[in-house]
Structures are given as C-alpha cells and as structure tokens.
C-alpha cells in the first residue's frame, strides 16, 4: 500500500472515533438520553440539560483541537509538513 493511502486510512480512523464522540455528547447525551441523565445532578445542573446547553459545546471545541494535534503529528510522520 502506498504512503498516501496509508495516510488517508489513518485519517479516516481518527474521523470515525472523533465523530462518534461528537454524536454521543450532542445527540445521545443532549437529546436521546436527556431524561435519564437529568436524574443525575451536577452542581446546580441536571446533567442532560448541561450537556445540551454547555457540555456538548465544550467537547466540540476539544474535539477540533485534538484533531488538529493528531493531524499535525500525522503530517510530520508522513513528511507532508515542512
């Protein structure tokens, strides 16, 4: 397998993992399981409500910066970045 296909495969692997987390914190925690999670309290917040109005957004930001880190590392490994 050539270098570029290898690079692409690793990229796809990262994408799947990160998008699963993206889907989980917003659609699952914030919407589908919101009633169940709301039974758990976290300071003055109900947990499901917190994910829908705060937590999901924080995780989104972290996800992009993790992706930046992973891809910069990958670019270096494959010598795409000078």
């Amino acid at each position, binding site marked *: 397998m050539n270098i*570029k296909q290898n*690079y*692409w495969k690793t*990229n796809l692997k990262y*994408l799947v993992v*990160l*998008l699963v987390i*993206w889907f989980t914190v*917003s*659609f699952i925690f*914030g*919407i*589908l399981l*919101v*009633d169940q999670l*709301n039974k758990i309290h*976290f*300071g*003055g*917040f*109900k947990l499901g*409500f*917190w994910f*829908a*109005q*705060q937590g*999901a*957004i*924080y995780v*989104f*930001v972290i*996800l*992009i*910066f993790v*992706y*930046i880190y992973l*891809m*910069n590392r990958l*670019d270096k490994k*494959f010598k*795409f*970045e000078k």
Partner: protein
Amino acid sequence: MVLQHWIWIAVGISFSIYIAIALISRASSTGEFYIAGKGVPPIANGMATAADWMSAASFISMAGIISFNGYDGSVYLMGWTGGYVLLALLLAPYLRKFGKFTVPDFIGDRYYSNIARSVAVFCALIVSFTYIAGQMRGVGVVFSRYLEVDINTGVFIGMLIVLFYAVLGGMKGITYTQVAQYCVLIFAFMLPAIFISLMVTGNVIPQIGFGSAGSDGIYLLDKLDGLQRELGFHEYTSGKKSTLDMFFITAALMVGTAGLPHVIVRFFTVKKVSDARKSAGWALLFIAILYTTAPAVAVFSRTNLIETVSNKPYADLPEWFEKWERTGLITYYDKNQDGLIQYVADPEVNELKVDADIMVLANPEIANLPNWVIAIMAAGALAAALSTAAGLLLVISSSVSHDLIKKMIKPDVSEKGELIAARLSAVGAVMLAAYFGINPPGFVAATVALAFGLAAASFFPAIVMGIFSKKMNKEGAVTGMVIGVLLMLFYMTKFKFGWFGGGTEKDWWFGISPEGFGTFAMMVNFAVSIIISKYTPAPDSEIQALVENIRNPDDN
C-alpha cells in the same frame, strides 16, 4: 454624558476603524478579492469566521429565544456549534487543498460539468440572499432602536459602510474588518453578562454562575423551574418539542452550518491545509465564548424578569420597564384592573407580553450599568450584523463574477475585467439587499431556517461525497442536489407559506417540523446520489486523481 452622545461616539469610533482597515487592505487582484490572497493567519481567520458566523440574530435574539424556550432552545446551541466539528473534520482541509475560489468551483470541477456548477451557483445565491436581507434589516433595527433614526435611514447608513469596505477591500478588507468586529461584539456581549452573573449569583463567570445558587441558597435552575411551574409555564430544564424533532432540527442546523458557502469560503483564505484545520478550531473557540454565555444570560434574565414583574404593582416597577414599554417591546394591559402584573402561561389571564430581544437589550439597565456600556452594546450589535452581511455579500459577488461570468459566460475575461465585474456585482448585491432591508418580504424570518435546510439538502452531501467517494459521479451528485433542494423548497413552502395545499403541525411528515426537514432532505440527497451513481459510469481517472490529491496536504 447623555446616552445618545455615548452611542454616537461608540458607533462613530467603531465605524472609523472599519473604514481605516478597508483603506489599508485594498484588494488589487481577484485572488485578494475572493480569498484574501491565501495569506490570513489561522487565529485571525478564526476571529473573522466567528464574526462572519454570528449575526444580529445570534447577538440580540438568541439568548432571548432560549430564555423563553428553556431546554428546547438547545437546538440552536448545539446546532450552530456542532457544525464546526463537521467543517474541521470533513470539509475545510480538503477544500483548502483543492485551492480554488468558491464552493461552486469545487462542485463544478469535481463533478466535471457546468450543470453541477450552475446548480451550485443557484443554491449559493438563494441561501445568501435570504440571509443577507435579514442582516440589512437587523442593521436598520439596531440603528432605529439605539439612535432614534428611522429604520430606513439605518439600513441606508449600514449599506454605505458595507459597500465601502466590501467593494474596496473584497475578502481581504472584509477579513480584517471582521477581526475588529469580533473584538467589538464579544466585548459588548460579555461585559453585561459578567456583571449580571455577578449580581445574580456572585460568580464572575456566567457559565459557572448559572449552575450555582443565588443569595437565598437555592440553585438558580431549580428556582427557575419552580417559578415556571407556579405560573403555568413548562419547566425550564425540560422541553415541549418531541425528541425526534429536537434531533432533526439540531442535525439540520449542524449540517446546514457546515454547508453555508459564506462560512466554507473562509477556509480558502489561509496559507496551507493545516491552517484550515487550525482556523476551524479557533473559530469554534471564539464562537463558543458567546454560545456558552448566552444560555446563562437566558436563565439570569428569565429569573430576573419573573421576580421583577410577577404579581408586583405596576406603579413600583423599575425604570427600565417603562423605558422598554415605550419601544413596544414590552406591553402590559391590566385585564382584571388590580394594578398588579399577572404574568402567566394562560393567555386569558396573562397581562404581559415581552419580546425575546429584551433579554439581551435591557441587560445593561437591569444590571445598573453606566450609559457607555449600552453604547458599546449598540456598536456590538451593529458589528454582528455588518460582519455577516459583508461575508454574504462576497459570496454573492463572487458567484456572479467568478462562477457565472468567468467560468461560464465569458471565460476569456481578463483578470482586470473580472475584478471590475466582482466590484460591480458587489454594488448590485448591496443595493438589492438594502431594498429587501427597507421593504422586508414577509418571509424573511421564515426563510432563515430555509437557508440552513437548503444548505444541508444541497451542498453538504455533494461536497462530502466529492471528497470521501472517488466513485461519486456527476449524474448522482447533480440529481441528489436537485432533488434535495426541491424537496426542501416544497416542504418549507407547503408548511410556511401554505402552498401545495398547506398544512398544519399534525400534517408534518413523521412529526418533523420544517426547521428540521433539512436533515430528511439531506438523507434523501445522499440516498439518491448513491443509487444513481451505481448505475451510471464512474468519473474518469483524472477526476479520481483529483480526489486522491485533495486527501493529503502534499504539494507534489
């Protein structure tokens, strides 16, 4: 000093900065006009994207809408931020590697046909025009509210400013003005939010404040849930919308965000692929500052409103109430003549109507902040509206001068001629937008949701499949886009304007609202494209090589 003077000073200073930036960063080539010469540093691009993205609606209306809808308002919070994850992971780096000027450029080249390009131009124009009309109106409303000029004069002043820096500077001028506008708007939004948080919860950070307890030791959200129940409203932390509809609306807003041409094109302006990823990260971080503060402001102002007015004698209300009553944004009618304000869910008994925009606009007065803070709010609201309008304007002008004229009608046009065409179409677009701002078509509010649905139903699938599938061909992509867009237009016009026999909530397909239907139309687009591409010839090796090429940042 009088409030009016403070406001003229704040608006005057901020506008002078925008004009100065425009004079410094004039565009001298089409590359600079369309994509700022690909030289924007990622942090600056992040700020510009954030300002481009956050419109007058985000700044003025969103916190209020959340405040009245509680948990249901989460669709906007998750929907308008989650799209950046899709942008950073699925679109931005590859489109930057592709390295042309516009979104129709990509669709037209990747699907090797001018039909695909034309469909993309058509979608880009519809999406951007529906959006920009709302922004120009927003500029007019802000002017009239703060400066006591009439709305039309406000639209006119806004139009001249945008015209000046967009036509002169193109993307280069817009980018650096947006950086300044981001700073103005975020400062204007955060300052009152921090003071209100301090006042209500004793915590400086609104994001933490709204999960803590007030001076009575009761958690703020528990107290608000209780107040809402008492007055017959639904509980703040739980919603009225069905789970399925929440899901579909959130998805449509996320995917729509990732498919909006004025947002995508910002990632064409950076130097290299890794900078496109970084820009998306910075952009979301800068957006998140406002988007995580807004739900806190929503809770503070909702609690404050109920505690201030509910069952209180009208005569004893604070000054800000009367001030905003004069603007017509608050109306009170004493139905039972008891001199008290009954603010309840039951429309028969309720005596108070409050416009959602109050929740942000009245904040400085509620928190007893000095007049200059209100002046800064005015400048912030204008920054939010102008920055979005300018970004949209550029998409419209480049669609006309680059995608239509250069790529289809007159391919031999010179660089100079194209630049003139770009400037002229920007002028034309501003005039048209101003016309809609002055004579707003009744459907403006309804069509903002339409813009997201359309972007989700058209661009997103075509771009994603263009990157992630080498076999996707023009037959599949074009049919998918056309069917997706038509389906979305059909559903929106049916349920929003009563065309095709109209219908009410109980006629919605599977209980999906028009706002959430973009998700459904997008899924149809994907399905149609994939099926048709299976039965039609795959793209030739040249196109497949193009796809290989955009998948990595290597230059060779």
